[in-house]
């Protein structure tokens, strides 16, 4: 195909970074819960999907997109708290596969419940009017809404970083992740810490689902594909490392984008090829702590 210009390559690179930001957003909740709780949350995609549906419901009740941005993470985060309290909590200390299987089953239940409540067919989810259309970014036109998603991702990351690194509660969370025994001895209620981390992780998953809704529409199975992508990003970045997830997400985006330019039919496979290469060279991922899975 003709028409390969420098502008196109630059635009393609930008599209890759933008897609990468979306991957980061998909992965961050998963990475947070794994890093702090060592729980592999297989229901991550289901929480993401529920986020989109709660958004849809808020719109049906007469709300707007901006209300959704607040209401969706709150509602689904609250649901996450209940899931942690009644389902995950009894399984702590029993090995990594117990919560994994539980959340795996939970994801099926959640998808099926949404099918019953909202039906199997999808719903449209319009981009908020003010964010419609494409803007010139110098090398070509790019959808305004995607730029908004990048901004929202950056905001979530910044807030999370400030919370974990700059608040005393964040300090307790990080300490709890390192050595729950000592933290408990110091008189901190570790189970409350874990509860809140799980709630935040699911709230971010739901936030991601809401932001994805205008890009893809809403359907009960929408969490399936992103679960795979989020896992790749988490594994490449290093299980549990949020910084790693950011770097890996952006890298995966660029790899997909560049593969799309030259061999588009390979784009989907390229994600997994990248993961395989990283796992061979560096099994714990970019910034992963070795032995976290054992």
């Amino acid at each position: 195909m003709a028409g390969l210009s420098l502008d196109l390559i630059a635009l393609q690179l930008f599209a890759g970074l933008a897609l990468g930001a979306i991957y980061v957003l998909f992965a961050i909740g998963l990475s947070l819960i794994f890093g702090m709780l060592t729980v592999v949350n297989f229901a991550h995609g289901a929480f993401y999907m529920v986020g989109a549906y709660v958004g849809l419901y808020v719109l049906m009740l007469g709300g707007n997109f901006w209300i959704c941005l607040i209401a969706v993470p709150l509602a689904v985060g609250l649901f996450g708290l209940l899931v942690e309290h009644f389902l995950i909590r009894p399984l702590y200390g029993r090995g990594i596969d117990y919560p994994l299987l539980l959340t795996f089953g939970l994801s099926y239940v959640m998808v099926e419940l949404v099918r019953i409540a909202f039906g199997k067919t999808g719903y449209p989810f319009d981009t908020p009017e003010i964010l419609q259309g494409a803007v010139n970014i110098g090398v070509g036109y790019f959808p305004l809404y995607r730029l908004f998603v990048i901004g929202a991702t950056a905001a979530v990351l910044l807030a999370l970083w400030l919370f974990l690194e700059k608040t005393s509660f964040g300090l307790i969370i990080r300490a709890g992740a390192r050595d729950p025994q000592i933290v408990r001895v110091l008189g901190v209620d570790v189970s409350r810490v874990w509860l809140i981390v799980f709630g935040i992780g699911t709230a971010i998953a739901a936030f991601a689902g809401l932001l994805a809704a205008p890009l893809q529409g809403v359907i009960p199975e929408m969490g399936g594909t992103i679960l795979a992508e989020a896992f790749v990003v988490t594994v490449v970045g290093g299980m549990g490392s949020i910084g790693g997830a950011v770097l890996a997400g952006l890298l995966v985006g660029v790899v997909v984008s560049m593969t799309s330019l030259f061999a588009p039919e390979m784009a989907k496979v390229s994600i997994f090829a990248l993961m395989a290469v990283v796992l061979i060279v560096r099994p714990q991922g970019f910034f992963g702590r070795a032995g976290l899975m054992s």
Partner: protein
Amino acid sequence: MTRNVTKSERISRRRLLATASAGAALAASPFRINLLQAQETPIKIGFPVPLTGPYGTEAQDQVRAAQLAIAQFNDAGGLNGRKAELLVRDDKLNPGEAATRTLELVEKEKVNFVVGSLSAAVQLAINNVTKERGIIFNSISQSDAINEAADFSKYTFHEAMNPHLTSGAVGRYAFSKFGKKIAFLTADYAYGHEMVRGFLDVGKKFNVENLGDVRHPLGTSDFSTLLPRLQALKPDILCIINFGRDQQISLRQATDFGVKKTIQIIAPLLSHASRVAAGPQAFEGVVGGCSFYWGIEDKFASTKAFNDAFRKMYDGKVPTDYGALGYGGVRTVLAGVKNAGSVDTDKVIAAMEALKYDFYKGPQYYRKCDHQSVQSVLIIQSKSKDMKNESDVFEVIGTDEPNEANLRTCEALGHKA
């Protein structure tokens, strides 16, 4: 020794109890009467379609309308009182799964006929199973290969349109109106490949220039890395050849990227169910083809009758394009049964070959050499304003009347004259 005896005794007692209670329940239930009445087994039609996965929305419509055809046949007295029954299976849009399910339907359920499929690739897998076992299969999704001598058998019927017919109709319309430079965004499997071939075929007459064909895997959720490349090619027409959720997402994201400002988007098929699921924004202004649109009911009495029956059965909903195919596929087989007065395969084949039918979209018939249904193609444009109700989604802007000349010739397909 004694232990063994008690064990077997316990089992036989339990089995006896189970059998007795089941028998008692049966005797007391209204099923008994049914059992006595239905001495003859029903006419079984296997129906493998991809209920889950990216084409799920369309597949569910196929089932709904097929059930209507069954109900109408039974209400009209069946075949001398013998009723028909639909056995729906999920083929998961996977050829291997479809072959297994079809084999089960044939070997275990002893179905008389198979109707179904919603994929150019999957229907060939089903056809392989049915033709080897001498079971009639009426395919209700697009494929060119199924008409060709290598895949065809006398048991194979094709109620759906095929890519050559569809792309020909849409291409003739689009190339004369929107320009000669075309680029493709194509789902990377048989459906996409056959459609591109069809568009380029008809494009020769219009001196169309092919700028490039970008292929994406089935089930893609993000097209943002493919669209800049296509925009940079600066075509007059972008032809997006995919289906189901892929179509919904790609049209939506193409709209976001501002493709429609300078480029006319066309699609060989615009799916009613996908248009409803994706909303008017995403499909706005897109031109494409379809085999059926409920809005032609003011033109054909058969369409009106079909729509009304469907509305009655499903709370006022109207049938979609692929729904209509599910209806047509089952209805023609059952019409063959009725005309033949038997479920005997050869007699039903002869009866179906002789059909001149108008069941839902105007006159149709199966061409003798490849059992392709000769039918009209509708050219439609998606509406985004002045919609009267939620089903008022397309405007019919052209019609290719049924004409064998728009199909590939029997000789070209490898059939002996």
